[in-house]
């Protein structure tokens, strides 16, 4: 059965994934909007940077974030000068890393949803006296709802599943940075296969339920 440290790891994982997803929905929306609407020559480059975590090994992202956020890195210098200390091996550090790591899984579905809306609803709203901001909230967001649902589920699930980045940036500190995936690794290292099984099975069930929800709530071709 699950021990106290297992429960703590599950709680920490859920907390990390929730905070990360919420942050990403806020940060990802303007990025997705810009990527969906811009004609700037920078579109390709920015889009590629956002998508990097899809192809890079998590250890590479973790390594660079560790260097950047460390005491001698640029981000680390900044956080220290602001009196925040250094981020690696803290929960905040994990959140920052997860935001980078899960960014494409949130930005891309939202961007696709924005692109699918097209030009006409924006023009129709403008002829009905809605300002651009008003249009965004009254037309774009409701029409992009399926994209937001996909983005939330994927962002959450992807953060739950991360391992390499966590290990690089967060280490393995109980209650602070030890998430489920690391906990499973520890169990296996310690030959505690029984406990590893429990947690692993929970992860499998969780992932299945998440994807099931995604496919039933958001069937393709429902729009219009």
């Amino acid at each position, binding site marked *: 059965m699950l021990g106290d440290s297992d429960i703590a790891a599950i709680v920490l994982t859920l907390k990390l994934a929730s905070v990360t997803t919420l942050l990403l929905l806020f940060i990802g929306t303007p990025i997705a909007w810009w990527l969906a609407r811009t004609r700037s020559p920078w579109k390709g480059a920015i889009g590629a940077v956002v998508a990097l975590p899809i192809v890079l090994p998590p250890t590479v992202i973790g390594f660079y974030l560790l260097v950047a956020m460390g005491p001698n890195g640029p981000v680390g210098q900044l956080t220290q000068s602001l009196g925040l200390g250094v981020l690696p091996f803290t929960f905040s550090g994990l959140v920052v890393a997860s935001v980078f790591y899960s960014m494409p899984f949130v930005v891309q579905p939202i961007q696709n949803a924005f692109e699918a809306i097209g030009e*006409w*609803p924006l*023009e*129709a*709203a*403008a*002829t*009905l*006296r*809605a*300002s*651009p901001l*008003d*249009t965004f909230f*009254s*037309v774009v967001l*409701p*029409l992009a709802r399926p994209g937001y649902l996909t983005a939330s589920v994927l962002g959450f699930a992807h953060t739950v599943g991360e391992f390499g980045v966590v290990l690089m940036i967060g280490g393995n500190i109980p209650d602070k940075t030890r998430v489920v995936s690391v906990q499973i690794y520890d169990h296996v290292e310690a030959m505690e296969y029984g406990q590893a099984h429990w947690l692993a099975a929970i992860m499998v069930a969780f992932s299945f339920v998440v994807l099931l929800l995604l496919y039933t709530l958001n069937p393709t071709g429902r*729009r*219009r």
Partner: protein
Amino acid sequence: MNSGNASGIRARFRIDYSGFLLDVDLDLPGRGVTALFGHSGSGKTTLLRAIAGLEPAPGGRLAVNGEVWQDEAVFRPTWQRPLGYVFQEASLFPHLSVQANLQYGQTRVPAAARRVSLDQAVALLDIGHLLGRKPARLSGGERQRVGIARALATSPRLLLMDEPLAALDHALKQEILPYLERLHDELDIPVLYVSHAPDEVARLADHIVVMEGGHAVANGPLTDTLARLDLPIKLGEDVGVVLDAVVTARDEEWHLAHMDFPGGHLWVRDQGLPVGHPARVRILARDVSLARAPVTGTSILNTLPAIVVDSVADAHPALTLVKLRVGESLLLARLTLRSAHALELTPGQLLYAQIKAVALLG
């Protein structure tokens, strides 16, 4: 170059796309329906979009009934222009019910500026039974009616319609046209109506701007402009005139209506219009033949004495287009050149125009 005209729409746009130049300088009436007529690619929709502010048009000027919407110093974005826009495909918001679609625009207009009530718009387009539905559950014609009502509910000072019937089949067009006519008769909102369909223009417009290659090649009252022999656009089989007439009598026995127009009268099929009702009739040039003396023993119902004004070569070398004066009105007739020779056609000559078909346009 004063754009402060008290009434009327003054539009000056020069938009240079690669390969296409829209260059117009127009003075349009500030009331009634003005058709922007032309083939596809003539720039009529681009002009409408520029007037709406949907198409960026640096250097453009636009004043609507004395109010400057755009000039060197001012550019009001679309949402700050008191206009209504009806798109070719009814652009109803799919996530909102019909009622919420109608309210979307209306609630964004300050209460003091509301002159058309929601009930009025609903009644005018006859969509009361649709209010609870989602757009996906409407037919194409119903959707377009809701789109028109939604635009009206914002109490626009200018209504822009971009081929609102183009996406509909013939039967649905006939379903919508009466509503557009009601709009024209019951509301005092100037309308710019983009169309490439001569029958729509003949039926709805008071004024016409003919667009070709990004330029306005003709601009004038509908009846005068359609009767021009030098109209610089190929109408083909649709060449003809429109007359403003009034029903003066109805023949119960033969189901015919007697209609007076300035300079003459016609019998047309009775379509139930009461005596005294004004209506338009359209006479196509191909349905008018000419004779030197009144012909008896013919099935033709309407024969009008007409004076030859002028004639020009028509699109086909065998044909000629003749302009005739009937009282104060003008008619066009399409003849073969051979017939014109046989008639010894000369300006000032009195002939008898036999009219094979007259279309009553509601």
